[in-house]
C-alpha cells in the first residue's frame, strides 16, 4: 500500500509542476481613457530543484510578456508581466498566456487575462445596407454612451445630402436612435454619418457610421 501512496504522490506532483501561482486568472475593467492593461502573475518555485521557464507564449499578438529572468531556485519567487494593448478591441476580452517550464515541459500552465473594455460611445450597427431596388424604408443605428462617460451626442451629419438622418434621444444623454433614409434606393450610393460628441471639451471625439446602397 505504501508503494501505491508513493506512486500517487509522484503522479500528483508531476501533474502540478513546481510553480505555484498566486493569481493565475485576473480580471480588469478598463476606463474609457485606457489603451492597455498590465497584469502581473506572481509565482514561487515550490519544488526541491531549480527550474527554468522555457517558454511564455501569448494567444494574441496584442499581448506581450516580460520576464526578468528564467532560472528560479527552490523557494524563489518571480513574476511574469503581461501587457494587453486594446488596439480597437471592445467588450469582454479573454487572453491566454501559456507558460512552459523545465519541470513539466509537456504540461504548460495557462494563465488567463480577462478584460472588460468599455466603449465610451457604442454604435450598433456601424453600417446600414439597402439592396438596389428594395423598398425605401428607414433603417436605425443605435448609439449608447457608457454610464460613467460625461459625453453627449452633439450632432449626427450625413456627408451625402441624398441620405437623410434624424436623431432621437431615447434615454436622455445616454441613448440615441439615428434613423437613416436614402432618397433613392434604385441605384448604388454611399454616405458616411459623422457622429460628433461634446467630450472631451478641447478635442471632442468623432465617431462614424456608414450607409450603403448596393
Amino acid at each position, binding site marked *: *500500500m505504501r*508503494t501505491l501512496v508513493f506512486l*500517487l504522490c509522484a503522479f500528483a506532483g508531476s501533474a502540478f509542476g513546481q510553480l505555484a501561482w498566486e493569481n493565475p486568472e485576473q480580471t480588469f475593467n478598463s476606463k474609457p481613457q485606457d489603451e492597455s492593461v498590465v497584469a502581473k502573475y506572481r509565482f514561487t518555485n515550490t519544488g526541491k530543484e531549480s527550474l527554468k521557464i522555457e517558454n511564455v507564449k501569448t494567444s*494574441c*499578438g496584442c499581448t506581450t510578456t516580460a520576464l526578468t529572468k528564467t532560472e528560479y531556485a527552490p523557494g524563489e519567487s518571480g513574476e511574469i508581466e503581461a501587457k494587453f494593448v486594446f488596439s480597437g478591441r471592445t467588450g469582454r476580452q479573454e487572453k491566454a498566456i501559456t507558460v512552459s517550464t523545465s519541470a513539466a515541459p509537456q504540461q504548460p500552465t*495557462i494563465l488567463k487575462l480577462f478584460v472588460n473594455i468599455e466603449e465610451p460611445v457604442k454604435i450598433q450597427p456601424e*453600417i446600414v445596407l439597402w439592396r438596389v431596388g428594395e423598398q425605401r424604408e428607414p433603417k436605425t443605428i443605435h448609439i449608447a454612451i457608457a454610464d460613467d462617460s460625461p459625453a453627449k451626442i452633439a450632432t449626427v451629419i450625413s456627408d451625402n445630402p441624398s441620405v437623410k438622418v434624424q436623431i432621437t434621444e431615447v434615454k436622455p444623454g445616454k441613448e440615441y436612435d439615428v434613423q437613416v433614409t436614402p432618397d433613392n434606393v434604385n441605384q448604388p450610393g*454611399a454616405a458616411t454619418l459623422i457622429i460628433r460628441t461634446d467630450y472631451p471639451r478641447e478635442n471632442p471625439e468623432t465617431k462614424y457610421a456608414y450607409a*450603403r446602397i*448596393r
Partner: protein
Amino acid sequence: MRALSQAALILLAALIPAGLTAAFHPQRPPWSEETLLPGEARIQTVLAWGGDVQWIDARSAKDYEAEHVPGAILLNLEDWDQLFPRFLDQWNPEKKAVVYCSSTACELSHEVAERLQKDGISPVYVLKGGWEAWKSRK
C-alpha cells in the same frame, strides 16, 4: 499478484481524473486537429465555393503587403476606423466573407468575424488554419 492489483488500482486512480478532465476541462485539447469551431470553414470547403468568396485579411498591414490571398481586403482591429470604410467600398454583399489570419493559433480572424457579424454582415466564416492553410492548399 499483489503488485498487479496495485498496478490496476493506480491505473484506475489515474483514469478517473483523466476521464473527468477530458470530458469537462474548459482547456481540453480537441480530439482531432480538424475539429472546427463555430463559424470556421476548411480551406477545401472555401475553395469549393469558387468565386463566391470575399477574402478578408485580418493580419497586420505589413503581412498583408508582403503577401495575401488574391483579391483579399485588408481589415484588422488595429486600424479598424481607417480600414472599415475602405472594406465597405470593396465589399460585395452577394459573396460569402471569409476571414483569415496567420495560423490556427491566432485569434484575429475570429475577432474580425465577430465584429462584422455584430454589424449585420452575413455570412461570415473564419478560415481554419488561416494563411498557413492557404499556403499549403493542394
